Protein backbone atom coordinates (compact mmCIF):
# COMPACT_ATOMS: atom_id res chain seq x y z
CA UNK A 1 0.00 0.00 0.00
CA UNK A 2 1.27 3.46 -0.92
CA UNK A 3 1.61 5.54 2.26
CA UNK A 4 0.81 9.22 2.74
CA UNK A 5 -0.26 11.62 5.45
CA UNK A 6 -3.85 12.84 5.54
CA UNK A 7 -4.99 16.24 6.74
CA UNK A 8 -8.57 17.50 6.83
CA UNK A 9 -8.49 21.30 7.25
CA UNK A 10 -11.48 23.10 8.78
CA UNK A 11 -11.19 26.22 6.62
CA UNK A 12 -9.89 27.26 3.22
CA UNK A 13 -7.02 29.17 4.89
CA UNK A 14 -5.97 26.04 6.74
CA UNK A 15 -6.12 24.15 3.45
CA UNK A 16 -3.86 26.69 1.70
CA UNK A 17 -1.40 26.42 4.61
CA UNK A 18 -1.38 22.63 4.35
CA UNK A 19 -0.76 22.83 0.60
CA UNK A 20 2.06 25.34 1.14
CA UNK A 21 3.68 23.22 3.85
CA UNK A 22 3.89 20.25 1.49
CA UNK A 23 5.06 22.27 -1.54
CA UNK A 24 6.42 21.79 -4.07
CA UNK A 25 4.74 18.71 -5.52
CA UNK A 26 4.29 17.05 -2.15
CA UNK A 27 0.56 17.52 -1.78
CA UNK A 28 -2.58 16.24 -3.48
CA UNK A 29 -6.16 17.34 -2.91
CA UNK A 30 -8.86 14.76 -2.17
CA UNK A 31 -12.56 15.37 -2.78
CA UNK A 32 -14.34 12.09 -3.59
CA UNK A 33 -11.04 10.36 -4.28
CA UNK A 34 -12.40 8.36 -7.23
CA UNK A 35 -9.68 9.69 -9.53
CA UNK A 36 -7.00 10.46 -6.97
CA UNK A 37 -6.87 7.08 -5.21
CA UNK A 38 -6.46 5.03 -8.44
CA UNK A 39 -3.79 7.57 -9.49
CA UNK A 40 -1.95 7.02 -6.20
CA UNK A 41 -2.32 3.23 -6.36
CA UNK A 42 -0.88 3.15 -9.85
CA UNK A 43 1.94 5.60 -9.08
CA UNK A 44 0.73 8.39 -11.37
CA UNK A 45 0.69 10.70 -8.34
CA UNK A 46 2.96 10.28 -5.31
CA UNK A 47 1.77 12.77 -2.68
CA UNK A 48 3.42 12.92 0.75
CA UNK A 49 0.36 14.69 2.09
CA UNK A 50 -3.24 14.32 0.98
CA UNK A 51 -5.41 17.33 1.82
CA UNK A 52 -9.04 16.24 2.26
CA UNK A 53 -11.76 18.79 1.51
CA UNK A 54 -14.37 16.93 3.57
CA UNK A 55 -14.75 19.57 6.28
CA UNK A 56 -14.96 22.56 3.92
CA UNK A 57 -18.46 24.06 3.59
CA UNK A 58 -18.58 23.65 -0.17
CA UNK A 59 -21.36 21.06 -0.54
CA UNK A 60 -23.73 23.73 -1.75
CA UNK A 61 -26.26 24.38 -4.50
CA UNK A 62 -27.20 28.06 -4.88
CA UNK A 63 -29.69 29.50 -7.34
CA UNK A 64 -29.70 33.19 -8.20
CA UNK A 65 -32.28 34.00 -10.86
CA UNK A 66 -31.35 32.01 -13.96
CA UNK A 67 -27.83 31.24 -12.68
CA UNK A 68 -26.63 28.36 -10.54
CA UNK A 69 -23.52 27.86 -8.43
CA UNK A 70 -22.57 24.29 -7.55
CA UNK A 71 -20.11 23.79 -4.70
CA UNK A 72 -17.10 21.77 -5.83
CA UNK A 73 -17.41 19.05 -3.19
CA UNK A 74 -21.11 18.27 -3.44
CA UNK A 75 -21.38 14.60 -4.51
CA UNK A 76 -22.74 14.14 -8.05
CA UNK A 77 -25.58 11.97 -6.77
CA UNK A 78 -27.04 14.96 -4.88
CA UNK A 79 -27.05 16.97 -8.12
CA UNK A 80 -28.87 14.38 -10.23
CA UNK A 81 -31.53 14.10 -7.50
CA UNK A 82 -32.27 17.81 -7.36
CA UNK A 83 -35.58 18.25 -9.25
CA UNK A 84 -34.88 21.89 -10.17
CA UNK A 85 -31.48 21.02 -11.59
CA UNK A 86 -32.93 18.14 -13.61
CA UNK A 87 -35.63 20.41 -15.04
CA UNK A 88 -33.56 23.53 -15.71
CA UNK A 89 -30.23 21.94 -16.67
CA UNK A 90 -31.36 18.68 -18.30
CA UNK A 91 -28.08 18.16 -20.19
CA UNK A 92 -26.03 18.49 -17.02
CA UNK A 93 -28.27 16.01 -15.19
CA UNK A 94 -27.99 13.53 -18.09
CA UNK A 95 -24.22 13.81 -18.18
CA UNK A 96 -23.95 13.35 -14.42
CA UNK A 97 -26.02 10.15 -14.57
CA UNK A 98 -23.52 8.85 -17.11
CA UNK A 99 -20.58 9.07 -14.68
CA UNK A 100 -19.52 5.64 -13.40
CA UNK A 101 -22.21 4.13 -11.19
CA UNK A 102 -24.62 5.24 -8.46
CA UNK A 103 -22.20 4.11 -5.73
CA UNK A 104 -19.33 6.00 -7.41
CA UNK A 105 -21.48 9.14 -7.66
CA UNK A 106 -22.23 9.09 -3.93
CA UNK A 107 -18.61 10.21 -3.54
CA UNK A 108 -17.44 11.64 -6.89
CA UNK A 109 -17.71 15.42 -7.26
CA UNK A 110 -17.98 18.05 -10.00
CA UNK A 111 -14.82 19.80 -8.72
CA UNK A 112 -12.82 16.57 -8.98
CA UNK A 113 -14.08 15.94 -12.49
CA UNK A 114 -13.06 19.36 -13.90
CA UNK A 115 -9.69 19.34 -12.16
CA UNK A 116 -8.94 15.83 -13.43
CA UNK A 117 -9.86 17.22 -16.88
CA UNK A 118 -9.98 13.82 -18.56
CA UNK A 119 -10.35 13.94 -22.36
CA UNK A 120 -13.14 11.39 -21.79
CA UNK A 121 -14.83 13.37 -18.99
CA UNK A 122 -18.61 13.21 -19.30
CA UNK A 123 -19.01 16.55 -17.55
CA UNK A 124 -16.54 18.86 -19.29
CA UNK A 125 -18.43 18.86 -22.65
CA UNK A 126 -21.68 19.93 -21.03
CA UNK A 127 -19.87 22.54 -18.92
CA UNK A 128 -18.54 23.96 -22.19
CA UNK A 129 -22.02 23.97 -23.76
CA UNK A 130 -23.39 25.78 -20.69
CA UNK A 131 -20.57 28.40 -20.63
CA UNK A 132 -19.71 27.34 -17.06
CA UNK A 133 -16.96 29.07 -15.09
CA UNK A 134 -14.85 27.77 -12.23
CA UNK A 135 -14.48 29.80 -9.04
CA UNK A 136 -10.93 29.46 -7.80
CA UNK A 137 -9.81 30.39 -4.30
CA UNK A 138 -6.25 30.77 -3.12
CA UNK A 139 -4.12 32.63 -0.60
CA UNK A 140 -4.19 35.69 -2.86
CA UNK A 141 -7.95 35.78 -3.25
CA UNK A 142 -10.66 34.58 -5.60
CA UNK A 143 -10.67 34.43 -9.37
CA UNK A 144 -12.99 33.09 -11.97
CA UNK A 145 -12.22 31.41 -15.26
CA UNK A 146 -14.36 29.94 -18.06
CA UNK A 147 -14.02 26.15 -18.13
CA UNK A 148 -12.86 26.55 -21.73
CA UNK A 149 -9.75 28.37 -20.48
CA UNK A 150 -9.34 26.45 -17.21
CA UNK A 151 -9.04 23.00 -18.84
CA UNK A 152 -5.87 22.59 -20.89
CA UNK A 153 -5.28 18.85 -21.25
CA UNK A 154 -5.54 15.64 -19.28
CA UNK A 155 -4.59 16.41 -15.62
CA UNK A 156 -3.57 19.92 -16.72
CA UNK A 157 -5.65 22.87 -15.60
CA UNK A 158 -4.95 26.53 -14.86
CA UNK A 159 -4.65 26.10 -11.09
CA UNK A 160 -1.77 27.21 -8.84
CA UNK A 161 -0.24 24.78 -6.33
CA UNK A 162 -2.02 26.52 -3.42
CA UNK A 163 -5.31 27.10 -5.21
CA UNK A 164 -8.57 25.16 -4.95
CA UNK A 165 -11.74 25.09 -6.99
CA UNK A 166 -14.52 26.23 -4.69
CA UNK A 167 -17.44 26.10 -7.10
CA UNK A 168 -18.65 25.92 -10.67
CA UNK A 169 -20.93 28.74 -11.84
CA UNK A 170 -23.51 28.48 -14.64
CA UNK A 171 -24.73 31.81 -16.06
CA UNK A 172 -28.18 30.60 -17.08
CA UNK A 173 -30.43 27.55 -17.15
CA UNK A 174 -30.46 26.22 -20.70
CA UNK A 175 -32.35 23.59 -22.64
CA UNK A 176 -29.50 21.13 -23.10
CA UNK A 177 -28.71 17.48 -23.72
CA UNK A 178 -25.85 14.99 -23.74
CA UNK A 179 -25.49 11.89 -25.94
CA UNK A 180 -22.67 9.34 -26.22
CA UNK A 181 -21.64 6.05 -27.73
CA UNK A 182 -19.89 3.45 -25.58
CA UNK A 183 -19.87 -0.30 -25.09
CA UNK A 184 -21.16 -0.61 -21.52
CA UNK A 185 -23.56 2.05 -20.19
CA UNK A 186 -22.04 2.14 -16.68
CA UNK A 187 -18.36 2.40 -15.76
CA UNK A 188 -17.26 2.75 -19.35
CA UNK A 189 -15.63 5.42 -21.42
CA UNK A 190 -17.36 6.99 -24.41
CA UNK A 191 -15.86 6.51 -27.86
CA UNK A 192 -17.25 9.95 -28.54
CA UNK A 193 -19.86 12.16 -26.86
CA UNK A 194 -21.68 15.37 -27.75
CA UNK A 195 -23.23 18.06 -25.53
CA UNK A 196 -25.51 20.79 -26.84
CA UNK A 197 -27.35 23.75 -25.35
CA UNK A 198 -29.39 26.64 -26.71
CA UNK A 199 -29.45 29.91 -24.78
CA UNK A 200 -32.92 31.32 -24.05
CA UNK A 201 -31.27 34.77 -23.90
CA UNK A 202 -29.61 34.94 -27.33
CA UNK A 203 -31.17 31.79 -28.91
CA UNK A 204 -27.68 30.73 -30.00
CA UNK A 205 -26.37 27.18 -29.80
CA UNK A 206 -23.27 25.75 -28.14
CA UNK A 207 -21.95 22.36 -29.21
CA UNK A 208 -19.07 20.51 -27.54
CA UNK A 209 -17.49 17.16 -28.28
CA UNK A 210 -15.88 14.86 -25.69
CA UNK A 211 -13.82 11.71 -25.89
CA UNK A 212 -11.10 13.49 -27.85
CA UNK A 213 -7.52 14.25 -26.82
CA UNK A 214 -6.11 16.42 -25.48
CA UNK A 215 -9.44 17.70 -24.12
CA UNK A 216 -13.15 18.10 -24.92
CA UNK A 217 -13.69 20.98 -27.35
CA UNK A 218 -16.34 23.38 -28.48
CA UNK A 219 -17.28 23.26 -32.15
CA UNK A 220 -18.26 26.84 -33.09
CA UNK A 221 -18.76 25.93 -36.76
CA UNK A 222 -21.42 23.37 -35.80
CA UNK A 223 -23.12 25.82 -33.45
CA UNK A 224 -23.21 28.50 -36.14
CA UNK A 225 -24.63 26.10 -38.71
CA UNK A 226 -27.66 25.65 -36.43
CA UNK A 227 -28.52 29.37 -36.55
CA UNK A 228 -30.83 30.81 -33.87
CA UNK A 229 -33.55 28.83 -32.12
CA UNK A 230 -35.12 25.80 -33.81
CA UNK A 231 -32.98 24.67 -36.76
CA UNK A 232 -34.20 23.27 -40.08
CA UNK A 233 -33.35 19.67 -41.01
CA UNK A 234 -30.80 21.00 -43.53
CA UNK A 235 -29.14 23.12 -40.83
CA UNK A 236 -28.89 20.09 -38.53
CA UNK A 237 -27.25 18.09 -41.33
CA UNK A 238 -24.76 20.92 -41.92
CA UNK A 239 -23.97 21.07 -38.19
CA UNK A 240 -23.43 17.30 -38.08
CA UNK A 241 -21.00 17.52 -41.01
CA UNK A 242 -19.23 20.52 -39.46
CA UNK A 243 -18.64 18.59 -36.22
CA UNK A 244 -17.31 15.55 -38.08
CA UNK A 245 -14.91 17.77 -40.04
CA UNK A 246 -13.81 20.02 -37.19
CA UNK A 247 -12.18 17.40 -34.97
CA UNK A 248 -9.08 15.34 -35.78
CA UNK A 249 -10.41 12.06 -34.38
CA UNK A 250 -7.87 9.45 -33.30
CA UNK A 251 -7.86 5.74 -34.07
CA UNK A 252 -7.24 3.70 -30.92
CA UNK A 253 -8.33 0.45 -29.28
CA UNK A 254 -11.81 1.85 -28.60
CA UNK A 255 -12.71 2.95 -32.13
CA UNK A 256 -11.34 4.01 -35.49
CA UNK A 257 -11.23 7.65 -36.59
CA UNK A 258 -13.76 6.87 -39.34
CA UNK A 259 -16.19 5.31 -36.91
CA UNK A 260 -15.86 8.29 -34.58
CA UNK A 261 -16.58 10.72 -37.45
CA UNK A 262 -19.66 8.71 -38.30
CA UNK A 263 -20.76 8.63 -34.65
CA UNK A 264 -20.27 12.31 -33.99
CA UNK A 265 -22.53 13.28 -36.92
CA UNK A 266 -25.31 11.01 -35.66
CA UNK A 267 -24.88 12.17 -32.07
CA UNK A 268 -25.13 15.83 -33.13
CA UNK A 269 -28.47 15.07 -34.81
CA UNK A 270 -29.79 13.26 -31.72
CA UNK A 271 -28.57 15.79 -29.21
CA UNK A 272 -30.04 18.74 -31.13
CA UNK A 273 -33.36 16.92 -31.40
CA UNK A 274 -33.35 16.39 -27.61
CA UNK A 275 -32.57 20.07 -26.91
CA UNK A 276 -35.40 21.26 -29.19
CA UNK A 277 -37.82 19.09 -27.18
CA UNK A 278 -36.54 20.32 -23.79
CA UNK A 279 -38.65 22.55 -21.55
CA UNK A 280 -38.17 26.27 -22.20
CA UNK A 281 -36.63 25.91 -25.66
CA UNK A 282 -36.57 29.37 -27.29
CA UNK A 283 -38.70 29.25 -30.44
Amino acid at each position, binding site marked *: *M*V*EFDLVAPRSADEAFAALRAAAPDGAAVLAGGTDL*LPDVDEGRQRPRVVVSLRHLPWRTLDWAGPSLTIGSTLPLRALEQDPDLVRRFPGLAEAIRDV*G*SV*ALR*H*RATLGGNVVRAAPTSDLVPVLLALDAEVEIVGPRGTRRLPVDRFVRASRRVDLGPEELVRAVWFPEARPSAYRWQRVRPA*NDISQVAVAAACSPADRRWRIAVGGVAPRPVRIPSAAEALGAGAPTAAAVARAARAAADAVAFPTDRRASADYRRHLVATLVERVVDAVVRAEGFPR
Partner: protein
Amino acid sequence: MTGGPIALRVNGVERRASDVPASERLLDTLRWRFDLKGTKEGCRTGGCGACTVLVDGESTLSCLTLTHEVDGRAVATIEAGGESPTMERVRAAFVAEGALQCGYCTPGFVVALTGLLEERGRAASRDEMLEALAGNLCRCTGYAAIGRAVERLRAEAP
Protein backbone atom coordinates in the same frame (compact mmCIF):
# COMPACT_ATOMS: atom_id res chain seq x y z
CA MET B 1 -1.36 12.63 10.33
CA THR B 2 0.19 9.38 9.14
CA GLY B 3 -2.52 7.40 10.86
CA GLY B 4 -4.61 7.37 13.97
CA PRO B 5 -7.69 6.09 15.70
CA ILE B 6 -11.04 5.72 13.99
CA ALA B 7 -14.52 4.92 15.25
CA LEU B 8 -17.29 3.57 13.07
CA ARG B 9 -20.75 2.26 13.80
CA VAL B 10 -20.78 -0.94 11.76
CA ASN B 11 -24.11 -2.76 11.44
CA GLY B 12 -25.25 -1.02 14.61
CA VAL B 13 -22.16 -1.90 16.68
CA GLU B 14 -19.50 0.61 17.79
CA ARG B 15 -16.16 -0.40 16.34
CA ARG B 16 -12.86 1.26 17.10
CA ALA B 17 -9.33 0.82 15.88
CA SER B 18 -6.17 2.66 16.85
CA ASP B 19 -3.34 3.38 14.42
CA VAL B 20 -5.23 3.03 11.17
CA PRO B 21 -2.87 4.25 8.41
CA ALA B 22 -4.03 7.38 6.54
CA SER B 23 -4.05 5.45 3.27
CA GLU B 24 -6.10 2.47 4.52
CA ARG B 25 -9.27 1.69 2.55
CA LEU B 26 -12.60 1.05 4.21
CA LEU B 27 -12.65 -2.32 2.40
CA ASP B 28 -9.51 -3.46 4.24
CA THR B 29 -10.62 -2.07 7.58
CA LEU B 30 -13.85 -4.05 7.38
CA ARG B 31 -12.28 -7.26 6.15
CA TRP B 32 -9.00 -7.42 8.04
CA ARG B 33 -9.55 -5.40 11.22
CA PHE B 34 -13.20 -6.20 11.89
CA ASP B 35 -13.16 -9.63 10.23
CA LEU B 36 -16.27 -8.85 8.17
CA LYS B 37 -15.40 -10.90 5.11
CA GLY B 38 -18.80 -10.57 3.43
CA THR B 39 -17.63 -7.42 1.64
CA LYS B 40 -15.61 -8.64 -1.33
CA GLU B 41 -12.64 -7.28 -3.20
CA GLY B 42 -13.02 -7.66 -6.96
CA CYS B 43 -11.10 -5.09 -8.97
CA ARG B 44 -10.00 -2.58 -6.30
CA THR B 45 -10.37 0.15 -8.93
CA GLY B 46 -14.06 1.07 -8.65
CA GLY B 47 -15.21 -0.96 -11.63
CA CYS B 48 -17.00 -4.05 -10.27
CA GLY B 49 -19.10 -3.07 -7.24
CA ALA B 50 -18.18 -6.19 -5.23
CA CYS B 51 -16.95 -3.99 -2.37
CA THR B 52 -20.16 -1.93 -2.07
CA VAL B 53 -21.19 -0.97 1.49
CA LEU B 54 -23.57 1.68 2.83
CA VAL B 55 -22.15 4.78 4.50
CA ASP B 56 -24.94 6.65 6.30
CA GLY B 57 -27.28 4.67 4.08
CA GLU B 58 -25.60 5.58 0.77
CA SER B 59 -24.03 2.91 -1.44
CA THR B 60 -20.28 3.47 -1.49
CA LEU B 61 -17.33 1.69 -3.12
CA SER B 62 -15.27 0.73 -0.08
CA CYS B 63 -12.15 0.08 -2.21
CA LEU B 64 -12.08 3.77 -3.21
CA THR B 65 -12.87 5.17 0.24
CA LEU B 66 -10.26 6.07 2.85
CA THR B 67 -11.38 4.81 6.26
CA HIS B 68 -10.47 8.13 7.88
CA GLU B 69 -12.73 9.94 5.40
CA VAL B 70 -15.76 8.22 6.94
CA ASP B 71 -14.61 8.36 10.57
CA GLY B 72 -17.57 8.61 12.94
CA ARG B 73 -20.16 7.50 10.38
CA ALA B 74 -22.51 4.53 10.18
CA VAL B 75 -21.50 1.68 7.88
CA ALA B 76 -23.74 -1.21 6.84
CA THR B 77 -22.37 -4.36 5.20
CA ILE B 78 -23.98 -7.56 3.97
CA GLU B 79 -23.61 -8.83 7.56
CA ALA B 80 -26.17 -6.22 8.75
CA GLY B 81 -28.79 -8.95 9.11
CA GLY B 82 -31.80 -7.95 11.21
CA GLU B 83 -30.27 -4.48 11.69
CA SER B 84 -31.58 -3.67 8.22
CA PRO B 85 -35.07 -4.92 7.37
CA THR B 86 -34.64 -3.58 3.82
CA MET B 87 -31.50 -5.66 3.32
CA GLU B 88 -33.32 -8.72 4.66
CA ARG B 89 -36.04 -8.16 2.09
CA VAL B 90 -33.53 -7.81 -0.76
CA ARG B 91 -31.68 -10.90 0.40
CA ALA B 92 -34.91 -12.90 0.53
CA ALA B 93 -35.73 -11.85 -3.05
CA PHE B 94 -32.28 -13.00 -4.24
CA VAL B 95 -32.77 -16.34 -2.49
CA ALA B 96 -36.30 -16.81 -3.85
CA GLU B 97 -35.13 -16.17 -7.42
CA GLY B 98 -31.87 -18.09 -7.10
CA ALA B 99 -30.09 -14.88 -8.09
CA LEU B 100 -26.63 -16.18 -7.33
CA GLN B 101 -24.23 -18.76 -8.66
CA CYS B 102 -20.75 -18.63 -7.08
CA GLY B 103 -22.03 -15.79 -4.87
CA TYR B 104 -18.92 -13.62 -5.02
CA CYS B 105 -20.71 -10.61 -6.47
CA THR B 106 -23.87 -11.10 -4.41
CA PRO B 107 -23.07 -8.95 -1.33
CA GLY B 108 -22.31 -6.02 -3.63
CA PHE B 109 -25.58 -6.40 -5.54
CA VAL B 110 -27.66 -6.84 -2.38
CA VAL B 111 -26.07 -3.85 -0.62
CA ALA B 112 -26.33 -1.59 -3.71
CA LEU B 113 -30.01 -2.41 -4.12
CA THR B 114 -30.65 -1.92 -0.39
CA GLY B 115 -29.07 1.52 -0.63
CA LEU B 116 -31.33 2.51 -3.52
CA LEU B 117 -34.47 1.26 -1.78
CA GLU B 118 -33.54 3.14 1.39
CA GLU B 119 -32.77 6.27 -0.60
CA ARG B 120 -35.91 6.25 -2.78
CA GLY B 121 -38.38 4.20 -0.77
CA ARG B 122 -41.64 3.42 -2.57
CA ALA B 123 -40.75 5.86 -5.34
CA ALA B 124 -37.99 3.55 -6.65
CA SER B 125 -38.85 2.55 -10.22
CA ARG B 126 -37.67 -0.59 -11.96
CA ASP B 127 -35.27 1.47 -14.11
CA GLU B 128 -33.81 3.17 -11.07
CA MET B 129 -33.29 -0.19 -9.39
CA LEU B 130 -31.50 -1.57 -12.43
CA GLU B 131 -29.46 1.63 -12.76
CA ALA B 132 -28.35 1.26 -9.14
CA LEU B 133 -26.93 -2.16 -10.10
CA ALA B 134 -25.31 -1.07 -13.36
CA GLY B 135 -21.92 -0.66 -11.66
CA ASN B 136 -21.97 -4.25 -10.35
CA LEU B 137 -20.45 -7.06 -12.37
CA CYS B 138 -21.33 -10.74 -12.07
CA ARG B 139 -18.62 -12.93 -13.54
CA CYS B 140 -21.02 -15.87 -13.57
CA THR B 141 -23.27 -13.62 -15.71
CA GLY B 142 -26.34 -14.45 -13.63
CA TYR B 143 -28.01 -11.19 -14.59
CA ALA B 144 -31.37 -12.62 -15.67
CA ALA B 145 -32.08 -14.01 -12.20
CA ILE B 146 -30.91 -10.77 -10.60
CA GLY B 147 -33.39 -8.97 -12.87
CA ARG B 148 -36.11 -11.30 -11.61
CA ALA B 149 -35.18 -10.48 -8.01
CA VAL B 150 -35.67 -6.81 -8.89
CA GLU B 151 -39.10 -7.60 -10.37
CA ARG B 152 -40.05 -9.52 -7.23
CA LEU B 153 -39.07 -6.58 -5.03
CA ARG B 154 -41.16 -4.29 -7.24
CA ALA B 155 -44.16 -6.59 -7.00
CA GLU B 156 -43.99 -6.83 -3.22
CA ALA B 157 -43.14 -3.15 -2.62
CA PRO B 158 -44.51 -2.37 0.86
